């Protein structure tokens, strides 16, 4: 059984900006452990001769030539924004700088 405890879930929830109740944290700790174990079973199927991959298709070097394509107008870009000002997206002040 993978060791995913309640604190791990609370930590992940905080990182992901997801608010979770105490009850949800308890339940998720159990569920996540099962999920991680299930995924882990894949490594039992793959032997040492199978390298880890991040992509299902064995492709490399898919490139685009450096040629300008289409853009949005500012109006289009902002059409889905909850709020805007001066052709820019307007967001609440966020103190925690990245």
């Amino acid at each position, binding site marked *: 059984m993978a060791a995913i405890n309640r604190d791990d879930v609370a930590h992940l929830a905080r990182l992901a900006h997801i608010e979770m109740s105490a009850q949800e944290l308890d339940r998720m700790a159990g569920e996540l452990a099962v999920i991680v174990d299930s995924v882990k079973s894949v490594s039992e199927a793959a032997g040492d001769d199978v390298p880890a991959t991040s*992509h299902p298709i064995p492709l*490399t070097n898919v490139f685009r030539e450096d*040629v*300008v394509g289409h853009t949005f107008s500012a109006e289009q870009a902002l059409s889905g924004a909850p709020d805007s000002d001066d052709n*820019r997206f307007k967001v609440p*002040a966020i103190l925690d700088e990245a």
Partner: protein
Amino acid sequence: MSTDTILSFEEAMEKYDPVLGFEVHVELNTKTKMFSSAPNVFGDEPNTNVNEVDLGMPGVLPVVNKTAIESSIKIGLALNCKIAEYCRFSRKQYFYPDTPKNFQTSQYDEPIAYDGYLDVELEDGTVFRVEIERAHMEEDAGKLTHMGGATGRIQGADFSLVDYNRAGVPLVEIVTKPIEGAGSRAPELAKAYVAAVREIVKNLGVSDAKMERGNVRCDANVSLRPHGRERFGIRSETKNVNSLRAVEHAVRYEIQRHAAVLDSGEPVIQETRHWHEDTRTTTSGRAKSDADDYRYFPEPDLVPVVASREWVEELRATLPEPPAERRKRLKADWGYSDLEFRDVVNAGVLDEIEETIAAGATASVARKWWMGEIVGRAKAADVDPGQLGVQPATIVELSKMVEAGKINNKMASQVLDGVLAGEGTPEEIVEKRGLAVVSDDGALLEAIDAALAAQPDVAEKIRGGKVQAIGAIVGGVMKATRGQADAGRVRELILEKLGVTA
């Protein structure tokens, strides 16, 4: 503003040994962005150089810009790095409005370039080797403007406005290994290192390299340890250090601040510091916390980049002459002394002098104009010499007029002022301002007679063979003609008059 206690730099150096580290972000000057075909252009109307990829809309797929990869490999090669045969992009997760996807596409454990070095030349010619840990590819974030509040800073802001034109602009982040052994030259080395990186990427043609536009940005890590101790101290990372002068000042300030903290017996806090150009101090940003848990994982929407050795060698063959080697060649070609050449380099007019010589000036004339006339004017105007807008052709024209005896050096300097003030071509300004050397010997002889009569003792000395005393008489004539005489001709006439051969 800052309430930090600091030690004097000298005292800090007596007690502690600084260790530096730099992360320099270089914006590539590709036509399009790293993962989208939107234009990579500075200064356009907000949110017009964006498309669905830059805005992180659901279901969109990034596609890597081939030119950006090639530029990154070139930077790696110019920094004497190894180029990864195989590398991937990774997602760096964080929530901040400058990154609409909620992750930045970057590279994590597989940078495209690694294990390099850069030999950095300090002002007195000392060469210091800076080891490069890695250079990796990533994308720039959007630009936030904090509104409301008194300072325009984030503290106290009511809201922020976001322009995503910069989001997705290709970046190469160059990370050094810890730099030890710089001692009291640490601030100078910091400046010289960033200058050297900027010079390299500009020389490669892969970046516009304008620090004032943020094309080259530096985060400076500083830590101190007592002399003789091997283990590093706790470091601070100063962000927003975006001019060469600021890099030097920020490193110096952080050394002084750390020293005072350590002296008080407190530990240095590992944190981000913000540089303030106005007060030349740093303020605390935020402490490193679990928010720095970026949960990198390989970007599933992009396939790996494989740089075949053939491709790398092809790119290597296109690299221009490295700046340091170019300097050696130019110094030999121009015949400048060590000191003359170093002054030219430090004044930042190497390109300008090269262009002026290419336009037809001799090496000594080009140096005389740039170092003697233009650098001083630039300093007074607080701009880089190259930004004054002096054209090489103007210098060539002015020096031809001086050689032809049409104007003297003093007038030529006035004509340059006129050119910079937009009064026209040198020819026109000479005409308009009535600047022309008085070469009518009659008028000169009259002034010479007067000057000799005014200083009979000097005239006697010259007759007696003390030719070096002639300056006083020449000076009198120049004064009488309001500087419009050809000093060389005046000298000849005086000697002739007094029957002395020089």
